[in-house]
């Protein structure tokens, strides 16, 4: 693997001499660079967020969309009510166990390329309500998050900063490098796993832990190897 990456680095060296018969393919990579730039420019300036307010942070999100901070300056004013038409999920507030099920479903319904911005302490990592029995300690336990905006609530300007960070992230993505984005690979990308509401929320990805714990007679003392 390591050799491989060295090799790739070498390949991407612009100084690398190009044999005549390979000129055309080089044009393709350059074209890709150009394409990516144009493409990303288009995408970064027309991010359509989903109308989706969870909690207190949503109020600041609305304030960001209103006249003083005016999200429209970034091409983000087209707030869609349907996940099918949106590029960005702004998780603005506390994610409860009851709500995470619809959130994951909505995420799966969004067309790619899609981004998630976790707004506020709650969406990032549980926030002040993390101890609560119905609160998920961070939306990234269920769906991938691109940008985290801490604060409780983040002021509109902090949210705008987060959105600019997201634009920067989009700028850095490339159409040809499959590692930079999952959705330009071959075939459909994996869906996020839907949790189930049981006696407490059940994440199917944790099934093996659950089975093991059920087998054990007593409550084990050592923590299992879950993601933190």
């Amino acid at each position, binding site marked *: 693997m390591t050799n491989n990456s060295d090799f790739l680095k070498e390949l991407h060296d612009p100084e690398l001499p190009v044999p005549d018969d390979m000129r055309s393919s080089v044009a393709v990579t350059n074209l890709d660079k150009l394409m990516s730039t144009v493409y990303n420019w288009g995408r970064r300036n027309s991010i359509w967020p989903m109308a989706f307010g*969870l909690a207190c942070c949503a109020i600041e999100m609305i304030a960001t969309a209103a006249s003083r901070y005016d999200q429209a300056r970034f091409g983000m004013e087209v707030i869609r009510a349907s996940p099918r038409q949106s590029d960005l999920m702004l998780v603005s507030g506390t994610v409860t166990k009851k709500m995470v099920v619809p959130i994951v479903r909505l995420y799966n319904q969004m067309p790619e390329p899609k981004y998630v911005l976790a707004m506020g302490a709650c969406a990032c990592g549980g926030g002040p309500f993390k101890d609560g029995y119905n609160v998920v*300690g961070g939306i990234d336990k269920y769906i991938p998050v691109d940008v985290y905006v801490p604060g409780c609530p983040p002021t509109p300007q902090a949210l705008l900063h987060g959105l600019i960070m997201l634009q920067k992230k989009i700028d850095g993505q490339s159409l040809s490098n499959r590692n930079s984005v999952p959705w330009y690979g071959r075939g459909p990308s994996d869906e996020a796993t839907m949790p189930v509401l049981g006696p407490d929320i059940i994440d199917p990805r944790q099934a093996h832990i659950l089975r093991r714990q059920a087998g054990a007679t007593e409550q084990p003392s050592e923590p299992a190897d879950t993601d933190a």
Partner: protein
Amino acid sequence: MTEQVPTADTVTPTGETLNVLHKRFKKAVRQDDRDGYDGILIDPARLVEVATAARDELGYDYLASATAVDYLGKGDHLEMVYHLCRTSGGPALVLKAQTPRENAELPSLTGVWSGADFQEREAWDLMGIRFTGHPNLKRILLWEGFDGHPLRKDWREAYYEADQKPFDSRWPDGHVRRAEQDNPYGKNVRYPDGFVLDEYQSTAEDALYADVALGLDVSADLATERVVVSMGPQHPSTHGVFRMIVTLDGERIEALEPVMGYLHRNHEKIGERNTFLQNMPYTDRLDYICSLSNNLGYALAVERLMSLGSRYEPPTYRAEAIRVLMAELTRIVNHMWAIGFLLNDLGAFFTPMMYAVTERELILDFFEATTGSRMMCNYMRFGGVAHDIPDRMRSEASLINDRVRDENTMEYLHKLINERLPRAIDQFDEYLTTSEIVTNRCIGVGVLSTADAIAASAAGPVLRASGVPYDVRRADPYSIYADLDFDVAVRYHGDVYDRYLIRLDEMRQSIRILKQVWPLLMDTGGQPFFAGRGGIYSPRVPAGESYGRVENPKGELGYYVVSDGGQNPRRYHVRAPSFINLTALEQMCKGHKVADVVAILGSIDIVLGETDR
């Protein structure tokens, strides 16, 4: 269209009521004589009779709040606490009924007040009291199939660390850990013993659709089919994560069941782990548009408890004036927001909202300069407020491109109250009140009659638009409202349009109050804004119970706090107006078109942080 209502008398209601009730019910009623407690204990077998008598004969026609308390280790019973009020004003009467913790069961009061419906469901959900005779006893905030009743004192959450904060692990050996690291399952989950994954069938969704009637309606002229639509929890017009299961006959609404709990953040459980002071910033997050008046209600409740002790100093006059200033500005913020959103729901997408948010930003500038935060103000303290109003609202550049401002605070306020806000309210009036689109969509829609509004424990603008001049600021005055001159706005049609108009009226009354408060602030400038010694982070709160209520912009916000005399409340309950106002939603919506539901919901003005807590 305003009316003067009688102000409260100071007689405690328990004594007089007890005399009357005792004649009839003999031993079934007795005085609650625990230290610091008040109210009447009732034999559960006769609860319904007593409640009916209180309603019909004693005039306590309004069920303000109903909640349960777990007295584990102090009698080992569950106790249901009812706060009854007269819509003509006066302090609350407290009724209580006890039941053992095992197989807890009490008669339901839904027959007496329909407003008991959701509150009893909540008590079942979180405390596990079964109410006999309740028509629809399902979980309300959690989902069907959840394990246990979390507000019981012996129920522990997955990230449980200790019964009370502060946790010992933070100091002096505070090696940082994320709570996930201590939980066997990592993700804030906890399963009951003997839980077998492969045999589990989730019932959470099925339960919602269990008793909706489907099929063809042949009795109508047009044979229409009944359909069930699930609106929400992600819906642009449900004001957050609210959900409704709507049964439609064609376009007409046959039945509607609100489903909530998508923002149930365990406010009360966390509140019982917190110290009294630590709850203050959490109250900001209840009705997150009106954090300052939430603070006020909680401060009142705890101050009432503290006044039972010996070393209590009531808030200074200046503190009270600041509190009223903040509460009234908050009311304007909220009503602007509510009107903006109502119009959003009617289809006037975002323009009225923009105008509302603009004015809100200007008020928020003042909040930010005074309290430190735009939304989560955390400003009131027990005995006053956290800071004085600053002389100047000045900012300091710290980031690149920062543009600074500097204004005299009192002048800013003066201008805000006397020029900017009245102009904005008039503008709304001109913009919307006569607009045919608004009148056509709103007049006669979502009517709630006076009797129904009282029975359903509706509060705030919803109640007053139905012709009940009930306002806690007058009915049971707190702070310095008794000295201030204002009218209780009231309208009589009980439809969406009146609920819109009443918000305009109330904003105008708030301006009137603010105009009286401004000189008070000028006069008291320099006086202390906090009574007693500062810097006490764990005030002594004697054992007892108290119910502090304020007229929040959305209705009566009450805090029921029970103290053991320790650092933490034993019970901390929030009587949330947005939650209880929803009781009447189905009633208001029945028979209307599906498009009216969002308008009706918008006119109730809910905030999910408070509905679900």
